[in-house]
């Protein structure tokens, strides 16, 4: 805040031109949004517009504000002022919720897989008659129909992550938020979950995802955002982010530091 224009606004304004015709209508936007958690400032002056169909990947070190930004975009966390977050409702509507989120550690009630899905559909207001069919469809989508009657919390980590994806997908969200969806998975489960995420994005769902895996960011992203200390330092299309774009110094350092582990 030294009088210079914040580094957050400029890249976002640049993005539409660089992404060109691929960019859909705006679905969600933040305007100089900030979040305080107790006495600490978790996010400062984040300006960002999500466009339908894009895949935004958030990178940054632990504590950079990735999860906070996801929660803020999703709406489970309030910005300092209500006007800092805006939901656009582009047409045609997808017919479901604005956003659904897959948390880092998925939470399920002590119920069967099927009942957990039906509960989510019930909370979403799906009439009783439609719940069973939609739940079955979602389980088929992630390949868990054989485990429908198992208690959800007895599934393996990879299966739980797929179930969390099924639950989010069942709500037909405009935007799907994913907080490090493959962080604690073995390589095989990681590939499965990544393929599912890719498939869901291809259905036209807008994706916002955090990851520590830059390789995953390269594979899945259409735009990459770098966060540090609760600020959005860089926001670039994926080929520019990992290519020729002039990036701020902390982002260049972050990429240098991260690459050896993820290569």
């Amino acid at each position: 805040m030294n009088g210079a224009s914040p580094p957050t606004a400029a890249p976002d304004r640049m993005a539409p031109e660089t992404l060109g015709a691929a960019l859909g209508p705006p679905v969600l936007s933040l305007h100089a949004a900030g979040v305080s958690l107790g006495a600490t400032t978790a996010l400062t002056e984040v300006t960002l517009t999500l466009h339908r169909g894009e895949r935004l990947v958030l990178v940054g070190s632990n504590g950079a504000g990735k999860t906070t930004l996801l929660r803020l975009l999703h709406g489970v966390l309030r910005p300092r002022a209500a006007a800092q977050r805006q939901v656009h409702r582009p047409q045609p509507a997808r017919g479901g919720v604005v956003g659904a989120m897959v948390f880092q550690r998925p939470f399920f009630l002590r119920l069967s897989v099927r009942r957990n899905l039906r509960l989510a559909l019930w909370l979403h207001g799906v009439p009783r008659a439609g719940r069973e069919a939609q739940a079955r469809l979602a389980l088929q989508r992630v390949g868990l129909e054989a485990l429908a009657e198992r208690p959800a919390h007895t599934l393996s980590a990879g299966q739980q992550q797929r179930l969390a994806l099924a639950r989010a997908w069942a709500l037909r969200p405009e935007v799907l938020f994913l907080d490090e969806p493959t962080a604690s998975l073995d390589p095989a489960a990681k590939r499965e979950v990544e393929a599912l995420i890719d498939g869901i994005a291809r259905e036209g769902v807008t994706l916002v995802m955090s990851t520590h895996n830059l390789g995953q960011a390269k594979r899945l992203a259409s735009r990459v955002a770098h966060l540090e200390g609760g600020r959005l330092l860089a926001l670039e299309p994926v080929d520019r982010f990992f290519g020729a774009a002039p990036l701020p110094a902390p982002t260049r350092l972050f990429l240098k530091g991260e690459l050896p582990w993820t290569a």
Partner: protein
Amino acid sequence: MNSIAQSLPIAWSLVTAGDPQLVAVVLLSLRVSALACVFGALLGVAAGAALAVLRFPGQRGVVALLNTLLALPSVVVGLTVYLLLSRSGPLGEFGLLFTPTAMVVAQSLLVMPLIAALTRRLLVSALEQGGEQLHSLGAGPLLRAGLLLAHERLGLVTVLLTAFGRAVSEVGAVMIVGGNIEGVTRVMTTTIALETSKGDLPLALALGLVLLGVVGALHALLALLQARRGQPVEALA
């Protein structure tokens, strides 16, 4: 030592023979404490859930007070209810003093804060795990509390059994508001206190054994529930 050796066989025969006086006292005890837990739970679970999910001015004070009331001395509850129900008290006209109803009222007041405080703690930790996920799925604060109470149903049963154990083994409150009237308001704990001071040790000891058995059975049930806690109880869902 000698008196124990003499009394214990007689006490045991009273228990095994199902002595009618003993049975009446045991049944009244269980009935009063079970009813108190039902009423205490109706208010306590609701209050605990509200304190866990709602934010209002003075909430910290209420929570601190509730945690203090966990250690509420039963004689103080007895005294308070006595003052309320006595002839000259505000509720004196109902003539409830020295009736089982008065004992239920006193024990309800005794276990209500206990149930509220323990329910709140149970929910606060459940909310840390799953509160935001349920919020994300569109559940409001009270619905989140309800769903997480169902999620933690075994924990809730544990809370209620703890409350019952506290109620059935307290002597101060029922003694003061019940008056320990034979055949009317005499329960296990008050009988033990009275018979001991009278020197009728076999009956006191027999009741002591039954009380120990009831509390022991409760704790065995608790241990069983806690061992099963990780496992699903679909029937309750």
